[in-house]
C-alpha cells in the first residue's frame, strides 16, 4: 500500500514543480497539466474509496502511511476541492499575469495535504503539515492588494508558529507513547505533560481551522489574497486539515477527559458567536464570508467535542458541507469581483438580473450555510444539535453551548440576508455586467447542486463517507435509528408550506404593489438604502459598541497582543544595548562574576 500512496503524493508534487518552471508563453500548458492531474487524482480517490472499502473497513498501519476510512474520506475531499478550484481558476485567471505560479503552488499543496492525511509516522506528518504553511504564504502573496505582504506575513507567523507548537506536541507524543506511529498511540489525558502536548497539538489544529482566539489571520487575508486561494485555503482545505487533526488527536490519540471537553466547547461556542457578530458589520463581502468561515468551525468543534457518535457524524458532515458551500460562496464572490472589479458591498447591487447563474448558486450556498432545509447545512447542524443534546444528559454545561450554537445560526441567516440584498438585489449600481465564463460557472453550479443533493439525500453521504469512520472507532453501525429526524423535517416543511400559502394568498388581496417611494417621490438609486447598513443598531447598542470599537483597534487579536508584549521587552533591551563600550564591558564582567559565584559561592 505504501507504493500507491507514494504515487499519490509524488505525482502532483512533480507536476507542481514542473508547473513552477514553465514560463509565461506556455501558460495553457500549466492549465492543461494541472487540470489533467487533478482529474486523475480525483478518479484515483474515488477508486481507492470504493476498492478498499470493499476489502477492509478497519484501519491498518504500515511503516509510514496508513489508510483508514477517515483518511480515505479526506483524500476524496482534497482531490475534489482541488479539481473544483483548478477549473474555476482557469476562468478566473484569464488576464491575470501575476498569478503565473498559482497552478504550481496548488498542485504542491495538494500533494502535501494528501501526504498529511495519509501519514502514520508523526515526523512525516509534521513535514507535510509545515510544507503547507509555506504554500499558504506563497499563495496569499500572489494577491495584488497593497497589504498583501503584511497579511501574508501575519499568516505565515501564525500558521508557521503553530507548526512549532505542533513539533513540541508531537515530540511529547513520541515521548509518552514511545512510538513514532499514530496508529499505536493511545494516551491518557491526565498528566501535566500529556495535557501540555494535547494543547500544543490542539493549537496547531485550531490555527489551521481558525478557532477563536487564533483565527485572526483568516479575516485579514480575505481582502488581500486572490479569490481561488481563499476558496482553497481558509474555505476548504485548511478546514478539512485542521478538523482532521483535531478529530485525530481528540478521538484517536488521546483518551477522553471531561474537563478538556468543556474547555474545547467553550472556545467552539465563543468562535461561533464572536465571528458571526463580526461578520454582521462588514462592508466587504469577502471579509464577511471569511468571518463565516471562522464561525462555522465552531459547529464542527462542538459536534466532535461532544464525543457522541451522532455529534461526531454531525461535526464531520458539517466539515464537508461547510467546505462545499463556503467554496461556493467564495466562488460567487470571486465571480462578482471579477465582473464588477470591486468587492465592496456599498458599490454593488442588483446583480441578480445580470448574473443569474452566479446569483442562484450563491443563493443556494447562502441558504445552505444558514441552515435552511432542505439544504445540507441544515442536516449537519441538526446532527450536531442532536449530539449536543445527547451529551447534555451527562454534562449540563452543554445547554449553554446549544444556546450559543442556535444564536449563532440565527445571526448567520441575518448576515446572509444582508449580503444577498446588497449585492444581488436592489438597484443596480454598475454598468451592464455579464455573467462569468463557463469555466467559473460550472464549478459553482456543481457545488450548489451538491449542496442541495446532500441535503435532500442526506443519508447517502452519511452512509457512504461518515458511518465507516464512526464504525471503525465505536463499532456502531445503526445509530441513525435513534434520530427523530422525520418529525423535525415534517414540522419544518409544514411551516414552510403554511408560510408559502399565506404569502401567495395574502399578498394578492390585502396589499397593492407600487414602486417604492419616499415623501411622494420615486426612489432613485441615490436615495436607496444599501444593505451594508443593516444591523447598525446592533453595533450601536451600549453593550456591543465598545466591543466593536476594541475589535476595530485589534485589541482582541492575539497576534497584535503578543507583538506588543515583545516590543515592550524589546524596548527595555534596546536601552541595555546602548552602543556605549563601558556598558558592554560591565556586562562581560557581570557574566564572569556570575560564573565565579556559581563555581565557588553556592
Amino acid at each position, binding site marked *: 500500500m505504501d507504493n500507491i500512496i507514494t504515487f499519490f503524493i509524488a505525482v502532483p508534487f512533480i507536476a507542481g514543480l514542473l508547473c513552477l518552471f514553465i514560463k509565461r508563453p506556455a501558460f495553457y500548458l500549466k492549465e492543461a497539466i494541472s487540470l489533467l492531474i487533478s482529474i486523475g487524482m480525483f478518479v484515483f480517490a474515488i477508486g481507492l474509496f470504493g476498492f478498499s472499502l470493499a476489502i477492509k473497513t478497519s484501519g491498518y498501519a504500515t511503516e509510514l502511511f496508513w489508510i483508514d476510512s477517515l483518511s480515505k474520506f479526506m483524500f476524496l475531499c482534497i482531490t475534489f476541492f482541488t479539481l473544483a478550484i483548478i477549473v474555476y481558476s482557469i476562468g478566473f485567471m484569464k488576464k491575470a499575469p501575476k498569478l503565473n505560479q498559482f497552478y504550481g503552488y496548488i498542485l504542491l499543496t495538494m500533494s502535501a495535504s494528501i501526504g498529511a492525511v495519509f501519514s502514520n509516522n508523526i515526523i512525516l506528518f509534521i513535514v*507535510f503539515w*509545515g510544507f503547507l504553511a509555506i504554500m499558504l504564504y506563497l499563495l496569499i502573496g500572489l494577491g495584488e492588494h497593497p497589504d498583501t505582504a503584511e497579511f501574508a506575513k501575519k499568516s505565515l*507567523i501564525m500558521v508557521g508558529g503553530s507548526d*512549532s507548537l505542533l513539533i*513540541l506536541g508531537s*515530540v511529547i507524543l*513520541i515521548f509518552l507513547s514511545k512510538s513514532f506511529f499514530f496508529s499505536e498511540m493511545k494516551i491518557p489525558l491526565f498528566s501535566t505533560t500529556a495535557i501540555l502536548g494535547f494543547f500544543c497539538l490542539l493549537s496547531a489544529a485550531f490555527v489551521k481551522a481558525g478557532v477563536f482566539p487564533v483565527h485572526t489571520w483568516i479575516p485579514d487575508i480575505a481582502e488581500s489574497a486572490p479569490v481561488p486561494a481563499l476558496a482553497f485555503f481558509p474555505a476548504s482545505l485548511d478546514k478539512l486539515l485542521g478538523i482532521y487533526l483535531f478529530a485525530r488527536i481528540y478521538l484517536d490519540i488521546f483518551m477522553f477527559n471531561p474537563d478538556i471537553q468543556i474547555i474545547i466547547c467553550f472556545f467552539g461556542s465563543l468562535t461561533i458567536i464572536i465571528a458571526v457578530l463580526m461578520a454582521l458589520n462588514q462592508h466587504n463581502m469577502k471579509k464577511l464570508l471569511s468571518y463565516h468561515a471562522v464561525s462555522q468551525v465552531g459547529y464542527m468543534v462542538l459536534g466532535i467535542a461532544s464525543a457522541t457518535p451522532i455529534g461526531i457524524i454531525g461535526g464531520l458532515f458539517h466539515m464537508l458541507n461547510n467546505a462545499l458551500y463556503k467554496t461556493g460562496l467564495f466562488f460567487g464572490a470571486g465571480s462578482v469581483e471579477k465582473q464588477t472589479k470591486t468587492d465592496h458591498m456599498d458599490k454593488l447591487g442588483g446583480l441578480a438580473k445580470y448574473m443569474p447563474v452566479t446569483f442562484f448558486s450563491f443563493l443556494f450556498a447562502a441558504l445552505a450555510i444558514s441552515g435552511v432545509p432542505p439544504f445540507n447545512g441544515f442536516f449537519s447542524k441538526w446532527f450536531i444539535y442532536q449530539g449536543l443534546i445527547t451529551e447534555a444528559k451527562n454534562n449540563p454545561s452543554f445547554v449553554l453551548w446549544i444556546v450559543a450554537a442556535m444564536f449563532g445560526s440565527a445571526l448567520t441567516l441575518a448576515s446572509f440576508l444582508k449580503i444577498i440584498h446588497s449585492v444581488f438585489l436592489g438597484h443596480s449600481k454598475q454598468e451592464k455586467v455579464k455573467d462569468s465564463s463557463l469555466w467559473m460557472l460550472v464549478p459553482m453550479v456543481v457545488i450548489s447542486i451538491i449542496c442541495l443533493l446532500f441535503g435532500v439525500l442526506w443519508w447517502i453521504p452519511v452512509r457512504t463517507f461518515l458511518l465507516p469512520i464512526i464504525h471503525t472507532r465505536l463499532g456502531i453501525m445503526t445509530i441513525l435509528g435513534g434520530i427523530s429526524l422525520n418529525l423535525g423535517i415534517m414540522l419544518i416543511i409544514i411551516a414552510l408550506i403554511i408560510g408559502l400559502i399565506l404569502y401567495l394568498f395574502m399578498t394578492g388581496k390585502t396589499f397593492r404593489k407600487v414602486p417604492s417611494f419616499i415623501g411622494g417621490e420615486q426612489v432613485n438609486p441615490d436615495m436607496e438604502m444599501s444593505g451594508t447598513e443593516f444591523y447598525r443598531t446592533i453595533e450601536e447598542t451600549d453593550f456591543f459598541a465598545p466591543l466593536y470599537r476594541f475589535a476595530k483597534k485589534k485589541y482582541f487579536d492575539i497576534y497584535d497582543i503578543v507583538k506588543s508584549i515583545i516590543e515592550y521587552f524589546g524596548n527595555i533591551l534596546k536601552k541595555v*544595548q546602548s552602543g556605549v563600550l563601558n556598558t558592554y*564591558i560591565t556586562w562581560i564582567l557581570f557574566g*564572569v562574576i556570575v560564573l565565579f559565584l556559581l563555581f565557588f559561592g553556592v
Partner: protein
Amino acid sequence: MINPFVFIALPMGMAFLIALIGHQYKKSPDFLANLTMGILFILSAICYGKSTIYYIGNWSPSIGIPLVLDGLSGLMLIIINFIGFMSAIFSIQYIEKFYTSKLRYYGLFLLTIAGLNGIVLSGDIFSIYVFLELASISSYALVGFGCGAEELEAAFKYLIMGTIASFFILLGIALLYGATGNLNLAAIANVVQSQGFSDPIKIAFIFLISGFFIKAASIPFHSWLPDAHSSAPSSISAILSGIVVKITGIYCIIRLVYNVFGATVLISHILLYIGLISIILAGIMAFMQTNIKRTFAYSTISQLGYVFFALGIGTPLAIFGAMFQLFNHAIFKPLLFLNSGSVDYQTGEKVINKMGKLNEKMPVTSTSTLIGSLSISGIPPFNGFWSKLIIIIAAVQANLIGPAIWAIIGSILTLSYYSKVLKCCFFGKGAQFNEEKWKSFREVPGLMLIPVITLAFMCIIGGIFIIHGYNGFFGRPVKDIINGPLWYIQSVFGSYK
C-alpha cells in the same frame, strides 16, 4: 594520508604570495585565493572521517606541538573551508564594487582561514591561543575594511572586546599551566582527570570559558557581535557569523568541556541556561531591528543559543542535534548574509524600510532568502527543521520540558523576525520605499549567484544528513564528544609512535 599541516601552511603561504605579487598582476588575488579555498575544501572533504596526529618538526609529545585531526576537527575543517570557498567566490565581484585593495582583502581573508584551521587542528592550548589571535586580528581588520565611521567604530569595539577575551584566555592558560605543568590538551586532561577539579584549575577554567563565551557571543558576553557583523563587508559577515564565531567560541568550548575538563552537572546547566537566555533575548532584539544585517547578526546569537542549549542537555542525541544545528547554521547564515550583500550590491541599502518588492527584480536572491529564512525558522522540510526537531526531542527525553517550551518560543520569534525581513525587502515594501530607484534594479551578476544557489540547495537537501543517525555524517564528531576526556587522552597518546 594528507599532512594536516597543509591546512595551515597553504592559506598562510598564499596570503604572503598574494601580498607579494598582487600589485603586479591585478587578477592574481582573485584567482589565487579562490584556488586556495577550492583546494582546501577538497582536501578537507578527503580528510573527513580520518584521524591522524602530526607533531610539527617531529618533536617529542611532551614538548612538541601536535596537530590532532579527529572526527570533530574534521567536521569543523569541512565547515570552515566550504564556507570560506563560497564566500571567496562571492567576494570576486562584491568587493570589486564597494571596496578597494583586493590584495589586502584576500590576504586577510586567507590569514583568517589559516587561523581557524589552526585552531581546530591544534592539540595544544597555547597554539590554539596563537591561532585564535591570528584569526581574530585579521578579522578586526576585515570588519573595519570599509573605513567608514561606522565600520571603524565597530572594528574598534570588536578589537577591545576581543582583546578582553584574549586576555581572559591567556590568563586561563597561564593558570592552567601553573596548575598542571602542561600545555598539551591531552596531558592537561590527564592531570585534570587524575587530580580532579582543584581550585586553581577551576579558576583557570572560569577564565578560559568566559573568554570563549565572549568569542561565541553568548548573552551577556555578546555585545560586540551585532556591530561587528553588521558593519563588515557582507562576504566577511558570512565568514564571521558562519564560522569564526563557531570555531573561536563554540568549538573551543566543546573541546575544553567535553575532551579536557569533562562535563559536570554545573557546567551542563551553565551551557543550557546561557543557551536559553541567548535564544530568547537575542530573538527579541532581532525582532526590534530595522537594519537587515543587524537582524541577521542578532539571529546568529539566538541560533547559536540552540547549540549551547543542546550541548547543555548532554545526551548523545542532544550532541547530535548540536552538531547538526551548528552545521546547518553554517549553511543558512552565510546564505542570508551573502544575500544581504547582493541586496546591498544592487540597492545600496541596509535599512529594510527603504527596500521593497525585490522579488520582481531579483528572483534568485529573493527565493534563496526565502529558503534560508524558512530553514532558520525551523519550517519543514528544510534542514533547520531537522536539527531543531532533534534538539527538542532530546530536551523532552531528558525531561527538560520547560526549557523545551522556551526553545519553541524562540523558534516562533525567529520566524516572526525573518518574515518581517521577507515582507519589507522582498515580497512587500517598506515605509520609505522608493519606486523610482526600484525600477533600475536587476539581479546580481552570475558569479555572485553561484555560492547563493549552492547554499540554498544545501538548505533544501540538508535533511538527508539525518539518515543513518549515529553512523552517518555526524557520527564521528558526536562519538568524539560523548566519549569524553579519557577517550581523547587515549586517542592522542595512544597513536603516537
